[in-house]
């Protein structure tokens, strides 16, 4: 049975080749640095991926981004207005001049985002964002009142509102723009 023997030999050779190939691929596969501590404590689990947005949700995210981009910048600018007032000039008029356009922006943004048409799945997200804009607007309002009456309690209240607002914005970002803040 020379034909049968050849067939068997070919099969064995093919199996050996497949095993060697699999072993080679396993060894050559790129891998990340694995630390001893990782090996003992952290069996790597796949990170949860955010669900893909539907077309309607994408439209909402795109519309909101236009507001978000400027809101983020002005939120930081508002903190800086406070820092500058406290650490540099203590000039209430200059402080007011810096806050006034921010107060208007956040007031308008609250109205604008509330009026956006969001799919039902995004209603909580929209609510968080509206809430954030309202908090920022109120915080700016408190800062402006401080420039009139000098009651520093108002600055403390404004700070607490700003912290809550920035947390709300992060919650929205986590849904719509995950990874907007990268390792730095």
């Amino acid at each position, binding site marked *: 049975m020379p034909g049968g023997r050849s067939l068997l030999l070919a099969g064995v050779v093919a199996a050996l080749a497949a095993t060697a190939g699999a072993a080679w691929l396993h060894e050559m596969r790129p891998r990340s*640095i694995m*630390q001893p501590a990782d090996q003992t404590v952290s069996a790597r689990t796949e990170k949860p991926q955010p669900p893909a947005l539907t077309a309607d949700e994408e439209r909402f*995210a795109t519309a909101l981004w236009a507001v978000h981009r400027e809101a983020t*910048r002005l939120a930081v600018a508002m903190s800086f207005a406070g820092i500058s007032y406290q650490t540099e000039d203590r000039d209430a008029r200059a402080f007011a001049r810096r806050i006034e356009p921010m107060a208007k922006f956040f007031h308008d943004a609250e109205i604008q985002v509330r009026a956006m048409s969001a799919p039902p799945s995004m209603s909580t997200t929209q609510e968080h964002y509206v809430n954030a804009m309202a908090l920022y607007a109120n915080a700016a309002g408190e800062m402006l009142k401080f420039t009139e009456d000098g009651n520093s309690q108002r600055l403390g209240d404004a700070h607490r509102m700003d912290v809550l607002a920035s947390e709300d914005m992060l919650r929205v970002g986590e849904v719509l723009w995950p990874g907007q*803040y*990268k*390792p730095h």
Partner: protein
Amino acid sequence: MRKRALRIHLFVWTAAMAVLACLFGAPAQAQQPVCSAWLIESSRFMNVPFGAFMPDRAFVPGSTKPENNIPTVDLPVNVGVIKCGNELILYDTGWKQQDYLKMTGSDHWAPLPDQLKVLGFNAADVTKVVIGHAHWDHAGQLSDLPNAVLYVQREELKAIEWALNYPEPHIRAINSDPGGCNRTPACGYMPLTIEEVYGKVLKGKAVIVDGEMEILPGVRIHPAFRAHTAGSQLLEVPTSIGKLVFGSDAFSSYEGIRDWMTANVQQTDTVQQFLAYEKCYKITGGYNNCVAAHEPLSYTDKYPLTKNSWVALNGGRMAEITLAPGEKSRKP
């Protein structure tokens, strides 16, 4: 005769100076504290492309060179805990993850007060916080340290504000596109982080630093402007194993300092980063006592300073770097 009198005069002066030096110099030296130091892993960024962290270590498929055959690395976010006498100092404070910021690709996060408790410290006992820079993953959780005085460079604050007011929208943006920004000048300074910095200022618990400053005898802030961000700063700490220099992201990588490779290029002038490396070599006498913020080899034998390590909350790691005489070990 006059020569002899002059010689005696000189001798008397020299002797007097020596006596003064003995009287005042020695006690002054003795007053300089020797500090203890630990390292806390606030969180870990997982599977970051090596080339995004260190351009010279970019993965080249099929390469057998050790510099180019690792595709991804896990980057710890390290926080320094320094105890000098009764003073408890943090260098950097990590970041806060609650029901948001879970999609940053990070793992092993735990609240800083809980991590401090593992070391036997109370967050309310932290007296000073020196932030290497004000990026979101290094200057968070400040409100959880109610009694700590914050030290931040004026240069850092000025540069962020400059960027925020720049006419070109991409340059002034905190987040220039939905995928996030990388290296533009205002990138990485999120509203929550800067609001917490403002909170410290508002409560009168912030020191705006201009350049170099000694915050305790022998514990010294050094400016490292543009070594990562505009107002980056280092912290020199005297310990029983010699001086340590904490570098935040000016010293992102221990291997980078050792091999003279740039790392974590954000708002970085690479020349200034190398000068910051040099500063550590000069202060400590080498590279081994430079404390890096994101070294992938942290908490292993390959980064010797951090090898005395253990696993703590949520899989995050800690290391006992050095103990002052009489200080008890906090390693379980």
